[in-house]
């Protein structure tokens, strides 16, 4: 989907609001939303479906609302479209004394342990041999038909060089629809000139991590 989320290379944005500090300060509601995101969800959600829900925000909302408000809208829409609760449930008055007696209580030590054990990867060995090898030039697909894809607009129909093969990972385009299919996965390096034209730096590059079906053989 050519959505508003696909920002790479889009022009008209102003300077970056830089900071040099090490500690990120967040408002209480932002922290709460982050914690909700780490602890709840529907059992059959996939990370790509979750990303696609965000991509479906109205474009003006996507650009306007604070970052963690997008998360609130994404999680809420996710719960509603999974039948966990309805929009009316959310908008109704709440019982202020509710305290979730049956929900699991975890303290800091348990949370830190869960975090350490939460490391994950969808990498898997598959019988198909990789179609491309390191050093090989490839071109990216010019057209994308999937609702969700990780091939950004700015890198479509461009020629680059495979610089790494990582094995097979879940293809996001299908994972966003709840369909699990592993596909070989590569890092592809593009010159700045290939992506942005003759006036770009002669030495700069952009690297993207791309799935095999995003790529076609050149020449």
């Amino acid at each position: 989907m050519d959505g508003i989320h696909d920002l790479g290379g889009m022009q008209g944005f102003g300077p970056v609001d830089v900071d040099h500090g090490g500690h990120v300060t967040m408002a209480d509601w932002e922290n709460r939303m982050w914690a909700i995101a780490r602890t709840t969800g529907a059992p059959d959600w996939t990370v790509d479906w979750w990303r696609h829900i965000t991509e479906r925000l109205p474009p003006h909302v996507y650009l306007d609302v604070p970052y963690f408000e997008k998360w609130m809208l994404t999680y809420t829409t996710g719960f509603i479209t999974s039948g966990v609760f309805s929009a009316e449930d959310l908008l109704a008055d709440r019982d202020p004394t509710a305290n979730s007696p049956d929900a699991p209580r975890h303290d800091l030590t348990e949370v830190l342990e869960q975090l350490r054990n939460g490391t994950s990867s969808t990498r898997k060995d598959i019988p198909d041999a990789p179609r491309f090898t390191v050093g090989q030039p490839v071109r990216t697909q010019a057209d994308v038909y999937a609702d969700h894809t990780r091939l950004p607009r700015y890198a479509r129909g461009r020629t680059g060089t495979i610089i790494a093969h990582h094995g097979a990972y879940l293809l996001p385009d299908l994972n966003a629809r709840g369909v699990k299919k592993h596909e070989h996965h590569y890092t592809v390096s593009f010159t700045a000139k290939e992506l942005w034209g003759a006036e770009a730096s002669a030495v700069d590059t952009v690297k993207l991590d791309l799935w095999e079906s995003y790529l076609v053989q050149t020449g």
Partner: protein
Amino acid sequence: MTRFDGEEAAQVHRHLHAHLPSDPALRVKALESLLVERGMVAPETLDAWVEAYSEHIGPMRGAQVVARAWTDPAFRERLLANAAEAIKEFGFEGHATGNLKAVANTPTDHNMIVCTLCSCYPFSILGMSPAWYKSSEYRARAVREPRKVLEEFGVSLDPEVAVHVWDSTAELRYIVIPERPAGTEGWDEARLAAIVTRNSMIGTHRTLTAEAE
């Protein structure tokens, strides 16, 4: 069951945005209250998660990894070969670092990390991402005009120094290994870690100095 229907999601978004209170704090409160009422989460558990990320998981972790890479050549080799495995030596594995690549700056090459499609970040070693990293400005411009963006961070590069922008489009996450500054010979890991800035590990800071900022 999830229906995985993008059109339905778009309709729900429009409905919610029109009917929810406009204050994001009230929006999140409404969600938390409903989840608590439904028994899906306990407020105390949310408190613990907030504390974990605000007090215990942050860029000091990445800084320790960088400091060891500076002092221990064998570790540096392991880190560059498979960073996801190497950070387990510290117990720093976890959220969003199951596939991790370390990219090292050199006098002729500068590395910089972005996620143009969303906001992917190696949380378990760098903690919460700074606001600018998630901003439309950074996401739009980092791939197209990285040198102008770097100038805004105070980084001026000679034209012959190559800028490599890594767009985190997949499960792989990145950490930049900045160059060790002169004047730090003989320092131990803890002292070195104190001068490694978060931005240097994302690639929007290049020249570290022997004095912490």
